[in-house]
């Protein structure tokens, strides 16, 4: 039985790395039939595969199209498993990250990659989408008690919306409660320092490491 469990979990992890949606869905159905705990299947199988894909991305064997298709395989499995997740049992509360693309910008590929990898890293993501006003980031972070606010932009003209988020947090007296991280094409560590953000990362796998460091999980 345990070797059967291992075979399925390993197969699920591989299916994500191999970008194979059909196998991901098939093995997820098998896992359900075998009565394996759905959350464990997601974390030790599918998300494990996504973390391996993230490592391949970091070592420049995988690039963005590959990561996105890996994430499709992950989602194909999660779709099957979702109805079987047992909610009782007091699963540990996940650290929340509010993420979005700053107002004025509609480019969200980078944001989506960060979302995929940070989620696979065990965080709960609240995705505000693209073209998001500064107020919305702050209000959501407060309402959801999110530890991290992740801001993305690809456009030089919209990056100035980022300091506004930091200022709003200060105005509302909650600057210390929410870490602010920034990323996107035109940005740099120098920009992050200048606007008083807590960190910058230049790609999605670094964003995951940054989030872990900031919340003390590194």
């Amino acid at each position, binding site marked *: 039985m345990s070797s059967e469990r291992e075979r399925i979990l390993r197969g699920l992890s591989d299916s994500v790395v191999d*970008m194979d949606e059909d196998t991901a869905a098939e093995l997820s159905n098998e896992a359900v039939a075998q009565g394996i705990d759905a959350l464990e299947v997601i974390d030790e199988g599918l998300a494990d595969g996504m973390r391996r894909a993230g490592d391949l991305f970091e070592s*420049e064997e*995988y*690039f*963005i*199209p*590959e990561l*996105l*298709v890996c994430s*499709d395989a992950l989602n194909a499995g999660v779709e099957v498993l979702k109805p079987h997740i047992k909610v009782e049992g007091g699963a540990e509360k996940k650290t929340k990250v509010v993420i979005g693309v700053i107002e*004025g*910008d*509609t*480019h*969200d*590929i980078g944001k*989506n990659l960060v979302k995929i990898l940070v989620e696979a890293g065990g965080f709960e993501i609240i995705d505000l989408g693209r073209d998001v006003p500064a107020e919305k980031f702050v209000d959501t972070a407060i309402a959801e008690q999110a530890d991290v606010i992740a801001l993305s932009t690809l*456009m*030089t*003209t*919209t*990056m*100035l919306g980022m300091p506004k988020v930091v200022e709003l947090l200060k105005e509302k007296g909650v600057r210390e409660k929410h870490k602010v991280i920034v990323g996107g*094409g*035109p940005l*740099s560590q*120098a*920009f992050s320092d*200048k606007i008083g953000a807590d960190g910058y990362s230049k*790609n999605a796998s670094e964003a995951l490491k940054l989030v872990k460091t900031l919340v003390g999980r590194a």
Partner: protein
Amino acid sequence: MSSLSPKERLLNTFARKAVDRKPVICPGGMMNAAIVEVMDNSGKAFPEAHSDAGLMTELALAVNIQTGFENIGIPFCMTVEAEALGSAVDFGTRACEPKIAVERYAAAAEAVLPDTKSALESSRSSVIATTVEAASRQLTDVPVIGSLTGPISTAGSLVDPMRFLKDLRKDAAASHALIDKVADFLIEYAYQLIEAGADVISIADPTATGEILGPKMFEDFAVRYINRVADGIHRANIPVIVHICGDLKPVKSHIAHLHADAVSADAMVDLVALKAEFPELVTMGNLSTYLLEFGTPEKVAAAAEILKRGSIDIIAPACGLSTSSPLANIKAFTDAIRA
């Protein structure tokens, strides 16, 4: 040697002929130099200037005069191509450049592009062509650069970009078919600008970077279709600048295979080292746009001086500059090169 006109200087540089000094240019499109301060000074502004040939011409001439860049660079955005092919555009504001609001297609396989001829007749491409014509008539010594959004980025502005990137892997056949048609369209659009008087065509393809696509797809899609567009433009005997965004490291071996008369690169690229490795390349770049926006004129001038002394053939900003960059910084940049 006696001093050359800006047009002679740039064209000589492409042809690897002798020049009196390096040209300093900003080709338009992704590298738009119509900053807010120039709009304030000239009274011609975004977003109106994106769709009106008269305003666009006056603003383009004002950019040339006020910034010191030795060219005309139009359009001021990267949305003309995708709009002509059916995507909806949000024209932005005075400070914010236009962007794609809604991509026309959900997936590469669903894309059925309109007929090129009618797309070019009934779209903003004719406004750009009229502007090229007016500008080249008024400034005969200044090179007029028509900027194109490259084939990968244009295709990625027609299909939802996430799906587009996945389709490169999941549905390569449909992706090739789409980008192939986009390349055909871009060649015809380039001809429209060339007939109107464009001296140079610049192609910027920000989705087609080594960092996004990786070396294999960069070769299969970016190099292949950028070269197809460049070959088409070369048939009209017009030189082509190709700008590649981001770090070139993952795709360095492919850069020498681009059919470009000049390769323009981002700030993190060491153009002197690139030139040493591929001496046949004409290189262009790469003053940090971060420095242009947040630096002081003194720091900008110092950085420009370093570029000027290195083995870079054409001096230009490294990437798209912010519309809030101070004019004093841009002037410090161009003055340092022109001195």
